[in-house]
């Protein structure tokens, strides 16, 4: 057997020049009832985060990658998968193990963030071209059969005639092949135990149908799409801070009330900030986290991942797992990332504000993004899902998710509302009786 390139593809692999993210306006909320006491300026100026350089620098992350049969270098078999215990790829025929190159080394992702200027991005982060096919056609070089790969859920498929595995490693502008991948580290058995433990702690008010149907063995290993962002910015925050100088009680009518004296200061902080490995979901479905409608916040909660250990993308890491394709571009994700970077900046600065024990009110927040680096990644999640059918006919998809690197577990368990309302009613009645007794006793 030769090691060929695929003979046909449903779409051309023309490199697509990424469109620089547009400068986002990060809306700032008005300051809530901030100035009743001292008459200082109301509201924020709306900060505009603009990259200094409009021309993005693209790191070609699929250089040397090939589609088709990816063979074991020792025996030539295509039965290659991740050995979760070691984090290496393993040939399941001759047991030879190896690892893909570290993404940080390959793409210089550990470089000084302070030297970032303008937009730098991995080629796997480039804009998605809507006309690009989701289902790709490859010709198996072992037997000549045509094999389809549905990139919505994988970048691998087995040839139905000769049983060889075909991989897709070259990037096409449909978001299926990212710049890097973080292999699973938590074994399935461990994930099942974590999910089981999580649910067992929440059995009493769990919906009886869920209790009956709960099968943690059905957990799925999923690679979910994210963008990992480094940001080099300069920030200038200005506002006012209060330091308490005295507290005392005064008599108002029949009661005693506390009063506070404080010194008011103008506060300015001017500094550079380097944000490293800020991670943002790049699937529009996962970005939707309205908790009354879905449980995507559960998957969000298990972040962060140790993305510094990600490796160059290799489809062989996907065998036995499924994936979701990225469907969001930088111009949609930039406002989210920049707003979160502002949050990070504001919280880090708090370590310099301990003197202001009554708080600080920022009235002006200017964050100038000088450089940004975007890399797309598949990150590993063990996902147990349960579709709840409600009495009104609607459905709600619950998740119990395990971070397949750190083991952090979070979940949403369907509630037996009738039982919870009944018990809450009992607690309420007991509380009312207790309140009456306490009042009667004058306590």
């Amino acid at each position, binding site marked *: 057997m030769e090691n060929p390139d695929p003979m046909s593809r449903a779409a051309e692999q023309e490199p697509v020049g990424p469109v620089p993210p547009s400068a986002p306006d990060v809306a*700032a909320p008005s300051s809530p009832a901030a100035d009743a*006491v001292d008459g200082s300026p109301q509201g924020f100026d709306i900060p505009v985060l603009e990259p200094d350089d409009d021309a993005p620098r693209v790191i070609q992350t699929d250089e040397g990658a090939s589609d088709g049969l990816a063979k074991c270098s020792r025996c030539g078999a295509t039965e290659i998968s991740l050995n979760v215990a070691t984090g290496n790829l393993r040939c399941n025929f001759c047991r030879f193990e190896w690892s893909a190159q570290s993404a940080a080394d390959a793409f210089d992702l550990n470089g000084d963030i302070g030297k970032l200027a303008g937009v730098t991005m991995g080629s796997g982060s480039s804009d998605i071209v809507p006309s690009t096919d989701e289902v790709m056609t490859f010709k198996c070089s072992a037997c000549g059969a045509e094999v389809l790969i549905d990139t919505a859920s994988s970048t691998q498929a087995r040839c139905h005639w000769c049983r060889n595995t075909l991989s897709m490693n070259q990037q096409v502008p449909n978001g299926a092949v990212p710049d890097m991948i973080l292999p699973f580290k938590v074994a399935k058995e461990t994930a099942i135990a974590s999910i089981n433990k999580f649910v067992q702690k*929440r059995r009493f008010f769990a919906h009886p149908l869920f209790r009956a149907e709960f099968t943690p063995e059905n957990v799925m290993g999923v690679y979910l799409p994210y963008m990992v962002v480094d940001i080099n910015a300069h920030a200038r925050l200005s506002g006012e801070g209060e330091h308490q100088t005295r507290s005392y009680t005064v008599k108002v009518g029949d009661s005693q009330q506390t009063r*506070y004296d404080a010194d*008011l200061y103008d506060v300015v902080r001017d500094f550079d900030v380097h944000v490293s490995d800020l991670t943002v979901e790049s699937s529009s479905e996962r970005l939707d986290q309205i908790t009354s409608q879905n449980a995507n*916040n559960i998957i*969000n909660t298990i972040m962060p991942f140790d993305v510094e250990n990600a490796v160059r993308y290799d489809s062989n890491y996907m065998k036995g797992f499924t994936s979701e394709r990225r469907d969001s571009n930088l111009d949609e994700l930039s406002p989210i990332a920049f707003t979160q970077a*502002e949050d990070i900046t504001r919280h880090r600065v708090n370590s310099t504000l301990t003197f202001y024990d009554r708080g600080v009110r920022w009235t002006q927040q200017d964050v100038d993004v000088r450089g940004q680096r975007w890399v797309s990644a598949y990150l590993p999640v063990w996902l147990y899902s349960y579709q709840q059918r409600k009495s009104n006919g609607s459905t709600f998809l619950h998740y119990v998710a395990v971070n397949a690197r750190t083991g952090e577990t979070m979940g949403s368990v369907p*509630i037996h509302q009738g039982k919870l309302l009944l018990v809450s009613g009992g607690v309420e009645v007991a509380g009312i009786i207790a309140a009456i007794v306490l009042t009667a006793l004058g306590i």
Partner: protein
Amino acid sequence: MTTSAIVTAVHDQVLASGGSSGDDGGFVGFIFLLSGFAFYALMYFRYRNADKRHRHESETEATLLNMKAEDTFVRSKTGMSNRTMNGANSHEVRGARKKFF
């Protein structure tokens, strides 16, 4: 309202009432009157975890460099009834994706 918000609100009320001993009995009774609602909220959030999210503001690595600080005294304020500064926003988080509605 999230579990932590409920706890914080109750905590704040306890603190606020700390200086007025004459109101303590009424406040304790008020807490008991809310016990059923508090129990429901506590269990709801324990099972659904609708209040949980990735704390990007504290869980993301960041470094501050070349810090320049300017702190200028403006004036003293007296007789304020609030324990904390009005409109303090240094702990505000705007980038969270999680919303209830």
